[in-house]
């Protein structure tokens, strides 16, 4: 068992991953279509699995790499419903990226076509470097430092520059005319 911890969370490799109570709770409890899983209780799982645990030792999320070829890997990323929007997903994605890098994998892939909240998940992935259509393959280059959005209240956009001096009039509220909105990068 290998461990790695950051921000109060611990990353633990599962040597013999099983479909157990924690996975039923976290993965089985996800919105419809989020994951395609059809395993029996106690069944051994294909792929490489890691658990994210909080300081109390409770599992709060899972990450998995399914390496179909030796160059890209499909990820599974699941966060317990009561721990979402607290950085657990970013923690898991960062760790999966690191695991992929040590395996010589160049691209991470994900597919969310059947996910009930796919637009939200698509935005979350795009901000973290994934590219691709919501109904197709999303992929990102492994090992690149993607800027994870900072937590907590952000400054209003208007405070970042002097709106009056903006020659193109690209102030908030005029995004569609401004041409500076990079939807792909989600940097408005």
């Amino acid at each position, binding site marked *: 068992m290998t461990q790695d911890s950051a921000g109060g969370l611990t990353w633990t490799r599962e040597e013999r991953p099983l479909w157990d109570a924690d996975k039923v709770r976290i993965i089985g409890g996800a919105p419809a279509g989020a994951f395609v899983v059809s395993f029996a209780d106690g069944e051994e799982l294909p792929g490489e699995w890691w658990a994210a645990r909080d300081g109390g030792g409770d599992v709060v999320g899972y990450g998995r*790499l399914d*390496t*179909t070829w030796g160059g890209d890997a499909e990820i599974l990323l699941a966060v317990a419903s009561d721990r979402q929007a607290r950085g657990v997903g970013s923690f898991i994605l960062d760790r999966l990226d690191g695991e992929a890098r040590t395996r010589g994998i160049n691209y991470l892939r994900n597919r969310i076509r059947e996910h009930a909240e796919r637009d939200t998940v698509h935005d979350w992935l795009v901000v973290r470097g994934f590219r691709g259509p919501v109904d197709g393959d999303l992929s990102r280059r492994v090992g690149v430092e993607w800027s994870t959005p900072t937590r907590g209240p952000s400054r209003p956009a208007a405070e970042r520059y002097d709106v009056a001096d903006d020659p193109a009039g690209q102030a908030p509220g005029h995004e569609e005319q401004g041409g500076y909105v990079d939807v792909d990068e989600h940097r408005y």
Partner: protein
Amino acid sequence: MTVDDRTGPAPVPSGPLSKIDYSERIPNNVNLADDRRLQRALEGWQPKFLDWWKELGPALPTKDVYLRTAIAVGRDGWAHFDHVPMEEYRWGIFLAEADPDRTVSFGKHKGQPAWQEVPGEHRADLMRLIVVQGDTEPASVEQQRVLGATAPSIYDMRNLFQVNVEEGRHLWAMVYLLHAYFGREGREEAEQLLKRNSGDIDSPRILGAFNEETTDWLQFFMFTYFTDRDGKYQLGTLKESAFDPLARTCEFMLKEEAHHMFVGTTGVQRTVERTAEVMKAKGGDATFEDGVIPLDVIQKYLNFQFSVSMDLFGSEQSTNAGNYYSSGLKGRWQETRRKDDHVLLEDTREMNYIEDGEIKQKTVPMLSALNLDLRDEYVADCANGVRRWNQELEDAGLDERLFLPHEGFNRRVGAYSTHHVSPEGEVIDAATWDSKHTDWLPTAADRQAVADLMVPVYEYGKFADWIAAPKTGINDQPVEFDYVHLAEEGVA
């Protein structure tokens, strides 16, 4: 269990000759002229391909090369040989003959008519399979672009260029499928196939081994033997696909791929032959000072290329691979000759893994272990070449032998990726690995010493000292045939 136990006899070859339309700008046997929109899209991609070829294709300037060009796809007379300027090679789109009665031979759609269009629910998966296959084709051309400058003979240089132009054609084959069946997304993926580059930091080729530098001709031969062989096996599984255009495309690509295997097999064999000759004459080990590649360095190169090529098969167990099979997208090697139900829902197999510092076995569902199934077929095939190379040592009266390292050696993907295993299959700790791995894998000094031997030999019929001449030439031509005419700036 051996391969022969699981498969029956080979099917009788069939299929009429199908002439390729060479009057078109893009040679093809898919009636491209009848689909003006597709034809225009491909004609728009063609100059980008040619720009890529000029920028990242073979660097050595040549006037023309004695190349094999496909002229038909039937079992007889499919290729024509002639001197051709490489940039004028007729890269085109050739599919194997259609079988109107073909049915899906495996998975949940087994017995249904093969698909002539892409089913919506499998669109993303099929496109991904085609993109990954397509990404490997130009990658090897990029990896090998400077090798012409150190070719050990004109004969070998011609073989390198033949491999390169055919990898270029295989890229065309995948791009045709993307353009013809996947709309705007397919066209965008086709563009990306020229934008990712081997070894590029920001945008590397997808598969790991296709980003390794091809440092010298021994590595080129090892690459064509081990890594191109992975391609052969992947094409063999796609040849079984329910998506008929993909199946027919890959079936024809396999014909051309056979030559690439030949280049690797005979290239290493001739290297071993020359080393064995020196060892026999000396009555001991050959060294770089003897002007040949020492046998232990050949073994190191073998260890490296075999292990990185094993990683190309992915992890032993993969949900995706099982889904591809059940959906009919990607079959097994020799699917139609397998003696089982071709659905595999109840089947299991044994799989090695490491626990408590030992290699153990466990039983896993067959559907989850199809990467391993394909890899096993590949390993059995790899062993054939090693036997052939060892025959050279035996013929020279030597006791030394080359061998395939253990499947767990130097692995970064799958069940062995978090462990260290010696070439003999012993599980070792990190300290032992750190102290021993330079005995097993080529060091920078090894690669430099091999590179120092790589002096170009451009005189017809002559060969560098480190490699033996082949027994015969290409297409019944003599070994000393003028296979390549160098441009004046290439000779200088």
